[in-house]
């Protein structure tokens, strides 16, 4: 029976794929490239991969499904994609809430990198054409033309394959592009053409990519997308666990769907950016260098390295030193011989993205003789939050599992930062509730910055106590099935004519997330023997970090109270750091030195972590706000 192959039609996207009867509907969606949210990685506990059977026959309902769905939903054909297996050809309806939605992405940090010494260089050469008196090979001919610039150089095999044809079509005038002393690309001479570099920040949830002019440092195009691996689990652990459960995909990148999806995702972004540039003299062949950063698991999945060991204590990376991999080996659609540079990782949960983030944040302090004795805290908020502290000219780093709550996940009316998401909330002294939505559309849900504001406002309006329990001090606080909740938007004011509410459970999710971050901050400060007020600067990076109200974050105790002039919100610092490395050999060198110099603290087995985390779940005294 396991050999029977069924066709699965996925509506309304209109994709189809074939799977065996022992493969789940979630696997079908993954194979078809349909991004169904799967928070738990397909073990039937998160209930996020809801699909509806339109036609066909599936395996019987599992116990988890019976617990998840109401009788009505079961009659309507609802199933969990990870729990259902086909017994015939099947037509499925995928409800919008199960799909990863388009949303606002973090692409700021426009400032140009300061150092400019790119490792890639192009020269234009006229090669003497062969004649009956000059019978040298094309390569020898090329070498002698280049000799004034490079005494000797290596030639990538892919260049040899196209050398002769290109020389002749270009009538012996070509541009030769070198990475250090290796010839990595030859193109016909064209006064208008540019050489480009690709900088990418692969986040667990989002991917940001930039195309940069390697000779001026200008950003020519940028694009963002969801990380297509979300279909395999919302957090790093779920994705690792997917691979542990699919041994047939391990061992080689060509069989590893997570590796393939991220490469495909990047190729789509490259195509999109080239279209945006819209210059006929610029194609993927002109992209001759790349820097890719990500947390250690994203780095490993991109590079096609094993991640199974990252899912189990003591969480060791396969590789921590910097890597250069040629584009063609990775299947990345840029010049085939271009080298993709991956900066070093620090530890299992502090990756190359954090090293990249340190370059524009902590490094300027570290490298400045007048400022290097400052105490600087840099926080990159994401599904995993990495934190570094500069103190006594030493950088100490840690990573906290803050989870995807700030992305709107696990929050009843949570959503990503898309139009209609409530991003700001205020409760006035006369109890009026004010809010602002993204793109000023009617509210349909609440995103991370909005939830943070709402909780801080409710706490300061005495609607929540320090434990996060609701207090009945407002007409919108009510009891529903023994549980307290707060009506943020009444049904007649929302975009979907449903109430938007915040429950105690939602508040608790944020307490868990902010508790993890604060525990990390406290342990770094404790190890350095510092009081929070001794911090000279606190730098907040990451998409969510850009949009939050720092004051709200302090009010709920996510960050220590500091004068606001010492706080900076810098946007996607990891993306900026990646661009700095793209344009500078020296920055690549600095990244390697930083990674070696950093002292890493593993929080999960730190003796004080449980205590600090438990303490940090509570909201701090309101008196501290004065």
């Amino acid at each position, binding site marked *: 029976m396991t050999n029977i192959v069924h066709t699965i039609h996925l509506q309304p996207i209109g994709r189809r794929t074939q799977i065996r009867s022992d493969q789940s509907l979630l696997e079908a969606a993954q194979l078809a490239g349909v991004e169904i949210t799967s928070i738990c990685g397909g073990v039937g*506990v998160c209930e996020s991969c809801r699909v509806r059977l339109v036609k066909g026959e599936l395996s019987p309902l599992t116990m988890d499904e019976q617990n998840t769905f109401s009788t009505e939903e079961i009659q309507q054909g609802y199933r969990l994609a990870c729990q259902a297996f086909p017994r015939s050809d099947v037509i499925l309806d995928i409800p919008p809430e199960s799909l990863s939605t388009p949303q606002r992405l973090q692409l700021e940090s426009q400032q140009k990198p300061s150092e400019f010494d790119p490792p890639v260089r192009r020269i234009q050469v006229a090669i003497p054409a062969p004649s009956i008196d000059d019978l040298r090979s094309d390569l020898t001919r090329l070498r002698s033309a280049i000799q004034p610039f490079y005494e000797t150089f290596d030639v990538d095999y892919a260049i040899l394959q196209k050398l002769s044809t290109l020389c002749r079509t270009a009538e012996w005038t070509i541009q030769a592009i070198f990475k250090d002393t290796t010839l990595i690309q030859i193109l016909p001479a064209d006064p208008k053409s540019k050489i480009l570099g690709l900088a990418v920040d692969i986040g667990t949830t989002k991917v940001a990519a930039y195309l940069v002019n390697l000779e001026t440092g200008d950003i020519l195009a940028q694009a963002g997308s969801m990380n297509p691996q979300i279909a395999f689990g919302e957090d790093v652990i779920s994705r*690792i666990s997917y691979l542990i459960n699919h041994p047939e995909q391990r061992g080689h990148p060509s069989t590893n769907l997570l590796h393939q999806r991220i490469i495909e995702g990047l190729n789509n972004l490259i195509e999109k950016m080239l279209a945006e540039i819209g210059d006929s003299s610029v194609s993927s062949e002109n992209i001759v260098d790349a820097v890719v950063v990500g947390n250690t698991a994203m780095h490993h999945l991109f590079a096609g390295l094993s991640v199974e060991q990252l899912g189990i204590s003591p969480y060791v990376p396969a590789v921590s030193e910097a890597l250069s991999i040629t584009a063609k080996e990775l299947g990345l659609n840029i010049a085939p011989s271009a080298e993709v540079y991956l900066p070093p990782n620090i530890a299992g949960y502090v990756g190359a993205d954090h090293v990249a983030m340190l370059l524009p944040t902590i490094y300027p302090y570290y490298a400045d003789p007048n400022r290097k004795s400052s105490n600087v805290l840099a926080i990159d908020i994401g599904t995993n939050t990495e934190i570094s502290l500069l103190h006594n000219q030493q950088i100490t780093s840690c990573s906290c599992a803050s989870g995807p709550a700030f992305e709107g996940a696990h929050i009843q009316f949570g959503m990503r930062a898309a139009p209609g998401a409530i991003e700001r909330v205020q409760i006035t002294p006369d109890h009026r509730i004010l809010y602002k939505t993204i793109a000023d559309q009617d509210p349909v849900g609440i995103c991370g910055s909005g939830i943070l504001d709402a909780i801080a406002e409710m706490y300061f309006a005495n609607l929540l106590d320090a*434990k996060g*329990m609701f207090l009945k001090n407002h007409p919108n606080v009510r009891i529903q099935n*023994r549980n307290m909740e707060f009506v943020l938007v009444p049904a007649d004011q929302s975009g979907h004519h449903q109430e938007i509410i915040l429950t105690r459970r939602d508040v608790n999710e944020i307490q868990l997330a902010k508790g993890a971050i604060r525990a990390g901050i406290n342990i770094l400060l404790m190890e350095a023997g510092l009081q929070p007020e001794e911090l000279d600067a606190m730098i907040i990076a990451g998409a969510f970090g850009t949009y939050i109200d720092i004051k709200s974050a302090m009010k709920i105790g996510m960050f220590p109270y500091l004068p606001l002039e010492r706080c900076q919100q810098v946007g996607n610092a990891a993306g900026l750091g990646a661009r700095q490395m793209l344009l500078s050999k020296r920055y690549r060198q600095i990244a390697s030195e930083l990674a070696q110099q950093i002292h890493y603290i593993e929080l999960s087995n730190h003796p004080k972590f449980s205590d600090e985390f438990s303490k940090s779940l509570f909201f701090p005294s309101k008196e501290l706000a004065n």
Partner: protein
Amino acid sequence: MSQEIFAKLTNSLVDGDPDATFEATKEALAAGIEPMVIIKEGLIPGMNIVGEKFSCGEYFLPDLIIAADGMQKAMTLLEPELLKRQQAIESAGTVLLGTVKGDIHEIGKSLVGTMLTANGFKVHDLGVDVPTETFVAKVKEMKPDILGLSALLTTTMVMQREVIKALTEAGIRNQVKVMVGGAPVTRSWAEEIGADGYAEDAMGAVQIARQLVAK
């Protein structure tokens, strides 16, 4: 009079006010109430209400933590008194507890320990990242009624199966009841790996432990 103090103890735990619990315990001792009675009539009912509220989704982790904190504060007063009287807390059974190998999550497992202790179980906590062999050796050595295995990651829950397998291989599977828990663990998983009990949360764990000991 004592009813009033018991209510004060119980309410202070339910309200999450550790200082009030501490004061009420002092008051109860000053009124000459036996420490064992204070625990049974004042504190355990409070912890049970907190546990029930947690089970039904009314209370959350901060409420449990603060109640456990109150309980601990009370015990700092009561334990020396119990020692003076050479009384041991009556044991409802012994539980060996730990988080499986490869997993270093502590809080959930420790809360289960706190709730079991509050309900009269003698709990021996092996900590986190406990090798399978250690579980087996400790079961042999301590002969607990119950072995509790915690796993918080989908990557490490498989170790629960390994421990049960190892107990069987060592020929001691029938000497101990095994209960499993942790965020990704489900009832169907517990059944699949042949565990004797599963609970969704710390309060549920107390009920399951009572049932398992009664068997």
